[in-house]
């Protein structure tokens, strides 16, 4: 996948298929410690230890329309190739937490990419699921919780096109101001603004 936001979109489908109604997506970027951690936590049906182990195997899937399941193996490969790892914590009946870590400045790390399309798309297609999206960059936090939005909307569905448009823009603006107003990711990748991010000198 070209963007980590596409892996996230994919991994969250597992949570939806597991019958979750609350899914939290957390991204924590720390350029001082040079880490990037993505967590997807749900309250779905969970997996026993054996199934959780098998989830890393591309030739295991719980579905019946095909014989392979690539979501978790692809994210695990992406993390491992960037000096990180993928952890699965799951309890039957309680839920699952997938945690993928990366070296933030690793040359092979895909950009986080378009999180506003990932999160607003998930909300638009899953009216009955609540999403809590938290994104932290060097201690600056952006958070969006659909339970807060639904309280304001009352009888108006959160999936109304105009509401989804507002959510998408809200996330886009929120991420930009969390990065300090600039297009941080594009700048660092274009080699600009290196002085303020010492981790970029590693390669």
């Amino acid at each position, binding site marked *: 996948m070209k963007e980590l936001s596409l892996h996230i979109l994919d991994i969250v489908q597992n949570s939806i298929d597991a019958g979750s109604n609350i899914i939290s997506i957390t991204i924590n970027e720390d350029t001082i410690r040079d880490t990037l951690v993505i967590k997807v936590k749900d309250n779905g049906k969970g997996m026993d230890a054996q199934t959780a182990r098998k989830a890393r195997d591309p030739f295991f899937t719980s579905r019946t329309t095909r014989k392979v399941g690539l979501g978790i193996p692809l994210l695990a490969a992406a993390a491992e190739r960037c000096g990180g790892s993928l952890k699965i914590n799951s309890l039957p009946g309680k839920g699952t937490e997938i945690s993928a870590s990366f070296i933030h400045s690793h040359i092979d790390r895909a950009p986080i990419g378009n999180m506003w*399309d990932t999160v607003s798309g998930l909300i638009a297609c899953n009216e009955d699921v609540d999403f809590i999206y938290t994104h932290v960059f060097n201690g600056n936090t952006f958070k969006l919780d659909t339970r807060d939005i639904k309280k304001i909307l*009352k009888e*108006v569905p959160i999936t109304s096109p*105009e509401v989804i448009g507002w959510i998408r823009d809200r996330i886009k603006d929120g991420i930009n101001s969390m990065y300090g107003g600039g297009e941080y990711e594009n700048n660092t990748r274009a080699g600009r603004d290196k002085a303020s991010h010492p981790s970029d000198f590693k390669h």
Partner: protein
Amino acid sequence: MKTIQELEEIRRRTLQTLNIRKDRSGTRIVVGMATCGIAAGARPVLHAIMDEVKDNNLSDVVVAQTGCIGICRLEPIVEVYKPGEEKVTYVRMTPEKARRVVREHVMLDKVVSEYTIGSEEKK
């Protein structure tokens, strides 16, 4: 930054159209969003459909997602369900093709035959 006040404005505007919407049984547009679909470009297709629905005020249209349909090589796949009509499956979608499906099939009732799975399999 988009404000809560703007959200409350949207709520008021949407509320006025809500009662009209309830009496109509609408069209469902379903986008395949499994690993295969996402890797093939389903996310921009989904957003193109949502934008087209919003821009044309199609208040009786529901956009939804589904998992893998089993024909991964033809992703991104979009299915259109119109009440009382047979399902139409569109394959190898792009944002531009998806916009055309909304404008012609959903709005004008003209199936875009050249993008359907039947037409793809004749190739």
